[in-house]
C-alpha cells in the first residue's frame, strides 16, 4: 500500500509542479508584452495623450484580431503607439478576416481587422458595429515573359476586359489579338505560348480586391468575388494557386509565360515587373500610391452607411483600377469600459492622422487615405459613444 501511495503522491506532486510551472510562466509573458522600452515616436504624440489622471504604463490593453493583410501595419503600430501613449498596449493577431469579424461580433476583442465588409447577417448580429477604412492596398499583375527585355522593352499593358478574359480562359495565348492591340510596341515579341494563370490558393483580401475588379471589368465574369473563389482557368488545367504573395511570386518566377496578381507592396519590395493597366477613362496607368489615392478620391462619396466602399475600376483619369480598403471594425455605441473606448478612439485617430503612423504604413507599401476620405472617416469616429457619453480623441 505504502508503495502505491508513494508513487501516487509522486505523480500528484509532479502534476501540481507542472501546473505551477505553467502558472508562473504565464506571468513573465504578460510583462514581456508591456512595452517599457519602446519610445521612438514619442515626439509626435497627439495632445490627447496626456489624460487628466495619467494611467499606469501598460495598464490598457487593446486587443485586436483578424485580417492578415493589414497585419504588418498593425504590427508597426503596436510597436510605436506605446511610445506615444505608454498606458496602451496594442495586441493584434492575424487570424484572418473571417475570424476577426466573428471575434468582434462575439465581443472577445476590442477591435477587428478585416478586408471583407460585414454581410447583412453579421450587421444584424453585431448590432452597433462600425467599419472604419484606414488604409488601402493596390493589386498588380506580375508576369513572366522571357521574350521581353525588362530594361529596354516597355512594360506589358492590359485592360480590364482582357484581364478578365485571360482569367476566364477565353484568351489563352500571349499573341492573342486583344493583347497585341494593347501592346503595339512589343506585339512582335508576344509568343504563341499558352498563358498560365496564377492565383492565391489561401483565402486572401488580395483575391477579394482582384475578383471585385474582374467583376467590375467584365459582365461575363461569373465566378463571383471573395477571399476564395473557384477559378475558371483551374478547371482548364492552365491555372495554379500559390500560398501567399511569396507563393504566387514563386509560381510566376518558375513558370515561363505565366501571370498572376500580387500585392503592390510585395511587388515593389521584390522588384517584380508588373503590368500597366488601361483604366476606365482609357488612360494607361501604373500602380502607385498616387494613382491608388486617386481611385479612393473618385469613390469618396460612394461610402455605404457602414463606411465601406468598393474602389475598383475607378473612373478618374489617373486612377489605378484594382484597389481596395482594409478596415478596422469596432463597437460604435455599446462599449462599456470607457477608458478602453477612449484609448481605442485615440489609437484609430492616431493611425489615421499622425504623420509618423502614416509613414510606417506607407513604408510597408500600404496606401493612406486621401483627405476627402479621411475627413469622412474622422466624422464617423467622432460619433463613438461609451455608456451614452461621447468619446473624443
Amino acid at each position, binding site marked *: 500500500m505504502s508503495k502505491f501511495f508513494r508513487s501516487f503522491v509522486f505523480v500528484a506532486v509532479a502534476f501540481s509542479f507542472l501546473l505551477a510551472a505553467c502558472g508562473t510562466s504565464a506571468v513573465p509573458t504578460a510583462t514581456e508584452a508591456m512595452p517599457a522600452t519602446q519610445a521612438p515616436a514619442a515626439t509626435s504624440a497627439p495632445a490627447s495623450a496626456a489624460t487628466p489622471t495619467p494611467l499606469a504604463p501598460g495598464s490598457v490593453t487593446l486587443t485586436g484580431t483578424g485580417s492578415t493583410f493589414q497585419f504588418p501595419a498593425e504590427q508597426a503600430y503596436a510597436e510605436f503607439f506605446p511610445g506615444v501613449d505608454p498606458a496602451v498596449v496594442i495586441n493584434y493577431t492575424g487570424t484572418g478576416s473571417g475570424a476577426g469579424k466573428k471575434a468582434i461580433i462575439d465581443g472577445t476583442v476590442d477591435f477587428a481587422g478585416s478586408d471583407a465588409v460585414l454581410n447583412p447577417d453579421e450587421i444584424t448580429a453585431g448590432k452597433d458595429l462600425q467599419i472604419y477604412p484606414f488604409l488601402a492596398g493596390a493589386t498588380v499583375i506580375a508576369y513572366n515573359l522571357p521574350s521581353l527585355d525588362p530594361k529596354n522593352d516597355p512594360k506589358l499593358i492590359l485592360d480590364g476586359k482582357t484581364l478578365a478574359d485571360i482569367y476566364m480562359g477565353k484568351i489563352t495565348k500571349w499573341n492573342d489579338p486583344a493583347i497585341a492591340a494593347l501592346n503595339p510596341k512589343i506585339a512582335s515579341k508576344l509568343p504563341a505560348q499558352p498563358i498560365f494563370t496564377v492565383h492565391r490558393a489561401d483565402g486572401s483580401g488580395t483575391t477579394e480586391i482582384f475578383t471585385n475588379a474582374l467583376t467590375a471589368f467584365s459582365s461575363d465574369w461569373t*465566378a*463571383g468575388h471573395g477571399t476564395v473563389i473557384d477559378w475558371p482557368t*483551374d478547371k482548364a488545367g492552365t491555372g495554379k494557386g500559390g500560398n501567399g504573395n511569396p507563393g504566387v511570386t514563386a509560381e510566376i518566377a518558375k513558370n515561363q509565360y505565366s501571370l498572376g496578381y500580387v500585392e503592390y507592396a510585395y511587388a515593389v519590395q521584390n522588384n517584380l515587373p508588373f503590368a500597366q493597366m488601361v483604366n476606365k477613362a482609357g488612360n494607361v496607368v501604373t500602380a502607385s500610391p498616387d494613382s491608388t489615392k486617386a481611385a479612393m478620391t473618385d469613390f469618396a462619396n460612394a461610402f455605404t452607411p457602414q463606411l465601406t466602399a468598393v474602389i475598383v475600376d475607378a473612373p478618374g483619369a489617373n486612377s489605378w483600377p484594382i484597389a481596395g480598403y482594409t478596415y478596422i471594425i469596432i463597437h460604435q455605441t455599446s462599449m462599456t469600459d470607457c477608458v478602453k473606448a477612449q484609448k481605442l478612439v485615440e489609437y484609430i485617430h492616431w493611425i489615421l492622422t499622425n504623420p509618423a503612423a502614416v509613414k510606417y504604413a506607407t513604408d510597408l507599401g500600404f496606401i493612406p487615405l486621401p483627405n476627402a476620405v479621411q475627413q469622412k472617416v474622422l466624422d464617423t469616429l467622432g460619433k463613438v459613444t461609451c455608456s451614452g457619453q461621447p468619446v473624443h480623441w
Partner: protein
Amino acid sequence: MKNISISKRNTWQERLNRFTRHGDIPWSLLIGAMAILTLVVVIAIAWMLWTQSADARAKIGWDFFRPTLDATWNPAKDIYQAWPFIYGTLITSLVAIVLAVPISLGIAVFLAELCPERLRLPLNWMIEMLAAIPSVVYGLWGIFVFLPAVVTPVGEFLSHLSVLPGFTGTLFTGPISEDGTSRLAAGLILTIMVIPTITAISRDVLLAIPNSQREAAMGLGSTRWEMIWQVLLPYGLSGILGAVILGLGRALGETMAVTMVMGNANEATGSLLKAGYTMASLLALQFKEAVTPLHTEAMIELGFTLFAITLILNLFARFLVWQVARRTPQEARA
C-alpha cells in the same frame, strides 16, 4: 458491541488494504482511464466535426460528395462539391503507398537480413532521421531540388506515354507545368515521407522473427532469397501490413509538404501531371480566411470526411491484418 464496531473498522481498513496492497487494482484503473482517454478524444473529435457541420450537411446534402471532378468549390457563391479534394487525397496516397511499399520492404530486408554489420548502424540512423525531418522541410526541398530535378522530367516522360495505346487515359494527360507542381509531385514527396515509417517498422518485424525459422528454411535447402520471400515475409506479413497502415495514415493526413508542391488548383481532368488539392491542403489554405459561415461548415464537413476515410481505411487494413493472421498457422509461429 465494542467488538462489532472494531471489526467494522477493520473490514473497512482491510478492504482498502486489500484493494491497494499490490497496487494492481488502482494501477489497472489508472491504465484503463488512460486507454479510455484515447477513445474519448476520438469520439470528441468526431462529435465536434459532426455537430459543427450540421448546417452544411442540411444545406448541401449529398451534392457535397457527387463523384465528378468537374466540381465547383466556390465560397463566393456558396457552392461546395468536395470530390476533387477527396480524389486528390486518395490518388496521392495511392501513388505514395504503391511506390513506397516495395522500396521500404527492400530496405527493411536489407537492414534485417543482408546488411554488413558496419553499415547497419549508420543506415538505421539515416532511416530514423528521415522520419524525423519536419514536413515543411520536405516541402522546401521538394520545391527547390526534387521538383525541378526529378518530377518535371519524369512528368514530361509520362506525358509522352499518353500517345501509346495503353496510356491514353486521363492519368497521364500532360503537359506538366515547368515548375513541376502537380499531383505526381505530391505523390512522390509523400513516397519519400512514408518510406522511413514503413521501413523502420518492417525492419523491427523482420528482426523479431525467431532464428529457428531461418535455420529451418536453410536446413531444408532454400536459398537466401527463398528464405526471405517464402518464409520471413509471410511470417511477418501482419506486422508489415501494420507498418503500411501507419504509412498510409501519414500520407492521408500530410498537409504542409503537399500544399507546397501540389499546385493548389481545382482541376478537372484528374491527371497526375496537373495541379490539384488534397482535403488537408484545402483546409490548411482556406480555413483561416473563410468568410461565409457555410464555407466554414463545408470545410468542417470536409474534415469529417477525411476523418471518416482515414478511419475506414484503417478498419479495412485491420481486417486484412486479421485475415492474414488467421491464415498463418499458429504452429508456424511457435
